[in-house]
């Protein structure tokens, strides 16, 4: 008798979802990443067994990873931002102008981050106040911000080689620990901060609820418009930060800054397992996704494959990972 009760209790005990169900997506991402890496280790073993290529990843990937990570939050709410490369440029232009005008580095930083945040907030305001799909409106604001920046700078760049900037540049993009670029550590810091924001704050909880079912969220008192505006503002802030990092890395502010980063960032988010439909996503996934994208870029060249094939690889990896998402989420439902 006692035995059957014990068995029954065991069977009735609430069981957690299986390991595979909870972490399947994460495994998929890491699997793709490790798979890609192994391919490159075999096809380009000379390059991929030396540390130089990893140091190269650590300096170049953060430029778009720093934007892919906050973009994850926007995608989880079910929106998208296509204007962040322009925000990056406009914010960095504000830094260059403020610095050349006042000679104050910190004021320049503050202005750049403020301009970035405001651009993001403006996107969020347009999306929520007029209920315009973000896919469309951020194409518009992308042109607008880029246009303002180009007109303001009159299309010319600014050197960032001033001696007073050296110490700041060193903190942002210097080399430390075996020559690893500091922007790599910054990317980790941003990942940790946004992980905390997403998983351990009320705002983060509301990001998931907004993207999952906005009517339910509103019925339970979630201000979905405020949530969306904030995610866009966060995006703008980090786009400005990424702009400063990218410009200090090359000691020059190019007015075309940000061009070519849009697709890398978006691909990182989706490759990282964030759902195209909203409601699901992780910043750690995006972090890994960004480095996979970075590795494809470098790996193709190092393997001696014609660089035109980069896009073929990109395409395949993204298509496979999105299919994987669909298959895994179907499994979860059963």
């Amino acid at each position: 008798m006692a035995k059957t009760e014990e068995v029954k209790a065991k069977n009735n005990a609430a069981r957690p979802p299986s390991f595979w169900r909870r972490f399947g997506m994460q495994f998929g991402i890491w699997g793709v990443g490790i798979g890609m890496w192994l391919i490159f280790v075999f096809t380009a073993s000379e390059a991929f067994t030396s540390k130089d290529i990893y140091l190269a990843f650590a300096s170049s990937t953060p430029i778009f990873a720093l934007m892919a990570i906050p973009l994850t939050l926007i995608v989880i709410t079910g929106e998208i931002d296509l204007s962040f490369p322009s925000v990056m440029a406009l914010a960095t232009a504000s830094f260059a102008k403020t610095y050349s005008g006042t000679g104050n580095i910190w004021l320049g930083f503050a202005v750049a981050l403020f301009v970035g945040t405001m651009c993001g907030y403006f996107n969020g305001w347009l999306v929520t106040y007029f209920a315009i799909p973000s896919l469309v409106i951020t194409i518009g604001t992308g042109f607008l911000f880029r246009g303002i920046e180009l007109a303001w700078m009159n299309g010319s760049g600014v050197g960032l080689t001033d001696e007073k900037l050296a110490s700041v540049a060193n903190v942002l993009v210097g080399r430390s620990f075996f020559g690893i670029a500091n922007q790599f550590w910054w990317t980790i810091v941003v990942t940790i901060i946004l992980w905390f924001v997403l998983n351990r704050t009320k705002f983060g909880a509301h990001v998931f609820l907004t993207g999952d079912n906005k009517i339910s969220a509103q019925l339970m008192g979630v201000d979905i418009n405020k949530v969306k505006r904030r995610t866009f503002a966060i995006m703008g802030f980090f786009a400005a930060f990424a702009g400063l990092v990218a410009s200090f890395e090359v000691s020059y502010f190019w007015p075309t800054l940000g061009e070519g980063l849009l697709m890398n960032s978006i691909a990182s988010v989706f490759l990282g397992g964030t759902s195209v439909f909203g409601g699901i996503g992780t910043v750690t996934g995006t972090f890994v996704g960004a480095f996979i994208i970075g590795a494809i870029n470098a790996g193709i060249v190092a393997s001696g494959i014609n660089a035109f094939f980069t896009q073929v690889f990109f395409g395949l990896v993204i298509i496979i990972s999105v299919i994987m998402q669909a298959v895994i989420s179907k499994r979860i439902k059963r």
Partner: protein
Amino acid sequence: MAGQAPVIQLKNVSKTFGEVRSLSGVDLEIYPGEIVGLLGDNGAGKSTLVKTIMGFHKPDEGGEIWFKGEKITEWSVEKARALGIETIYQERALCELQPIWRNMFMGREIRNKFGKLDVAKMKSEATRLMSEHMGFTSTAVHPDNSVLTMSGGEKQGVAITRALYFEAELVILDEPTVGLSLSETKKTLEFIQNIKKSGRSAIFIDHNIFHIYPAVDRMIVLDRGKVAGNYKKSEITMDELIESMYRVARTGSLKE
């Protein structure tokens, strides 16, 4: 019950969506410890009324909402819930991709004194509530499971438990028995009796008069956005109620 301020009182509340007037000049009050049945045909404005009480819809100019004898301005869902009004919606208002614990504390997440979410506590509270109040022991209700994996009754269980957790002064149940099995329906009706026993109030909306009549103290009949009738249970038998409901549906008026 005279002398005691109503938990919630609507004065001359109207709600217009574009050209469509869903509610017109609704006056209604719910007293402490009272269970009120809200009856009405499809399109009578029941759900709009509920969503207006909850702050999801803003009433048209001129309408007033009073809570415990105080006029409330700037009414919102957040405020309504903070004051102690919880609703179990017909559409359940769940975010199905999210785990149970997130749904349970949706909009009112537990935080520690630094403002950090207390995820461990939310999970353990969710587990405790699900087993204590809803008697769930099946494997489907681990707090980390997504709501998507649950049956209709279990989903409703999450919605009911959620309303229960926050010890609401007023619980609104918008067709809570739709799609439930017999035993789940019974459980829901028992839940309504428990609200009354603990001295709190409820508004109970259902299509089924046989569910409503035994459970409530008073019945309000809504028709085309207006209050068409207001009966204490002692004033009307079930047959008379059914009869007058037919009359309202046909003529829009309770009197012949």
